[in-house]
């Protein structure tokens, strides 16, 4: 598969000459969600559905900015969020076209509530 970057630039157009000409941006060196989905298929074909699931969640996160990723990670750490706050993050992920991640956060929220690792528990 011929990959293209998050920016849409094809791999063949990512070289030093382009860089020297000032035509490369950081998004030209980021992975595209389609590539992650394809890698997920490869992982699945090679017998690792869990790795595939991880890569599908990653595909949903590929376009989300760094600060938001760090914020969600922080919110998932123990005692950081109420169940409602986790639900709000899940809803945001749904809206951002990240249903697998949204479901993942809801799954966490349910277990956190039961095990007392939500904030204020």
């Amino acid at each position, binding site marked *: 598969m011929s*990959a*293209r*970057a998050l920016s849409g630039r094809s*791999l063949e157009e*990512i*070289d*030093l000459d382009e*860089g*020297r000409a000032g035509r*490369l*941006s*950081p998004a*030209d*060196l*980021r*992975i*595209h969600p389609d*590539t*992650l989905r*394809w*890698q997920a298929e*490869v*992982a699945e074909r*090679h*017998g*690792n559905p*869990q*790795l*595939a*699931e*991880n*890569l599908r*969640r*990653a*595909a*949903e*996160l*590929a376009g*989300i900015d*760094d600060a938001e*990723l*760090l914020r*969600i*990670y*922080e919110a*998932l*750490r*123990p*005692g950081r969020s109420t169940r409602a706050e986790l639900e709000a993050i899940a809803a945001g992920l749904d809206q951002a076209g990240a249903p697998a*991640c949204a479901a*993942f*956060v809801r*799954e*966490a929220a349910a*277990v*956190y509530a039961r*095990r007392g*690792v939500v904030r204020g528990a």
Partner: protein
Amino acid sequence: MDDRADQRGAQEESRGQVRGSTSGRFRALDRQPVNLDGFAQEDDDMGLVAFRSRHDPEPSLVLGDGGEVAELDGVAAAGFDMLDAYIAAHGIDRAVAAQTTALDDIEFARLIVDPITPRDEVVRLAGGATPAKLARVVALLRPVELQMAIAKMRVRRTPSIQAHVTNRLDDPLLIAADAATAVAYGFRELETTVPVLADAPSNALALLIGSQVGAAGALTQCSVEEALELELGLRGLTTYAETVSLYGTEQVFVDGDDTPWSKAFLCSAYASRGLKMRVTSGGGAEVLMGAAEGKSMFYLESRCVALARAIGAQGVQNGGIDGASVVGSVPDGMRELLAENLLVMLRDLESCSGNDALISESDMRRTAHTVPLLLAGSDFLFSGFGSVPAYDNMFGPSNFNGDDLDDYLVLQRDWGFDGALRPVDESRLREVRERAARATQAVYRDLGLARLGDDRIAAVVDAAGSKDLEPLDPAVVIDAAAAIRERGVSLLDVVLSLARTGFAEEAERVLAMGRAHVTGDYLQTAAIFDEQMNVLSKVTDPNDYRGPGSGHSPSKARRAEMAAVRQQRSRRDLLDKQAPHVGHVRLVVTGDAARGSDPAEVCIGLSPAFASALWSTMAGIPVGEVIALVLSGLADEGCAGRLVKVRSTIDLGMIGLVAARLAGSGIGVGLQAKGTALIHRSDRAPLACLELYSVAPLITPEMYRELGRNAGRHARSLEPAPLRNPYIEEAIEPRYHAEAVMLVAIERESCVPGAAPLNVEVLP
């Protein structure tokens, strides 16, 4: 005695585990380094037990009507802690659960070891195994069975190895030079960390630059607090992540400020930027944190590894890691550490196999910990070989460190296992160190991060470690690190800066790492890049070991590379020692040797190559001097010496006996060119000489003279006290045997069977 030895001595006095022994034998043993190590009695309640605690659950797996896991290892769904819940939801292959659950433990263990049973079939069955089931089965394996299983079950066919690259100063030039050095040796992943957290971005940047000097494709990481590590990864300043820790109990997990879901999210976050990552676990962590719940270390590790698979990580660093010494303190601890690596492989994950923490003060014990894995092979033989001096390792000393590199290369050569490293010659070492330091200096200057002087480059190129350098103003590194972070310096900035400053080759290679993030092929299990940027992974380079004659084996070229350690000497090299002495003495033949009649005459039998093809003893004494010394010793006792060239044999006993039979006194001296010497008497059997000086490299000029005197005393029928061979406890034979073989071969070439002995004289 250096500082370290002083310190060691003080430790032996104050901290030895065994003290106050009353017998000499035990007092001597007390001083052995192994007695600085701690050994703990097994204690199930504390979790101080390697494989099996009475509190470990019985394996169980019950599926509900909807196919969901209703019971896992004795716990019903309502009582699942976070680990159970995550593993139950994501980590069990329900399609094989019933088959695996029904499989007898010993039968399962045999399938794991048996080379004929395909790897894929074992992986399939392991997919249905609960943590307790897999722990119990693997615990059945003996050490050699673990090795067989590891040879078959590791994911990647080609073994690889990771290095620690750190220093006490966080000196960016030294980090870059040491990174390039590690790559020259063959390390394919480089891990750094910091003594000062704020320095992390600088270390990551210097490591990235240094890693791409000399060869392409080594992966780099900077091990720091999870959020900062992620930030560095998102910027592309690191190319993989590893320090995503998992623990075997919920309490320790939460104490570590994470949950299985937060860790799983981290996995996805790294992957979302095209970054390889693996998780870290390792036995002993829970008991160190006082929350092992009375479970065995191996059962808890089995939970970690099951969780690693469940969260979708491609690999695991384990085999003790920070808790390695805790595991090592209990019975079966070393076997447990090796078995942890196998757990990872059985879950079809990349194994980054520990050996990264110094497990003993005893060289014997720390080596014994690591060697079984080296012989079996792993995706990463070390999750951090300390490529720098132990004092510079900011993770703490690794089990093997910079000073052990020659030992490692020799071990690899001895056994023919592929340890993934290669010898490096000194000019290459200097070349890559200088290039890495200069590239880093240039980028730091170009990006306005720091001005690092040229004088420091020379010092860094030469340095063994940071103790050889002037201290660096800490503000320099902190300011550079802060600037990298504040300005959001990214991989692309590094590429463009390298290109601007004349390091186009390195710019291309760093850019290639950026392109690798775009293609994502190295997100697959056990992926590394070779030096041509080919991805070697489960997908492209699967382990195909099926018993003898299969699987990875070093190619002919690779074997030659492994063989060519810098200490290896050819015949020509070994004979270099002879060169300065060639022709320094000339012997002239005066006729056939006949029996003498002077009762004060002692004959000195010279070996075939003596002063004709060989000119120096192994102790470096010119052979002419040896003759002169023996003659002067004889003269001291009023005896005359006659030189006889014995051409028909290289056997020193025979040479001495031939000389003795020719001598008027019946006493002869035998000399081999390599320096071995003896005194013989005409009526004795060839091997029953009077005195033998067998350790040629240790024979001094004074001893040759004393040998002459003793020969004279024998001729005068006195009974001299035989000279003592200089016995020492060092391994003298391995030091000299290769050279001795060469010298003996030359004696053999000079030998003329059947030729009569000749009288010779030294030309003045």
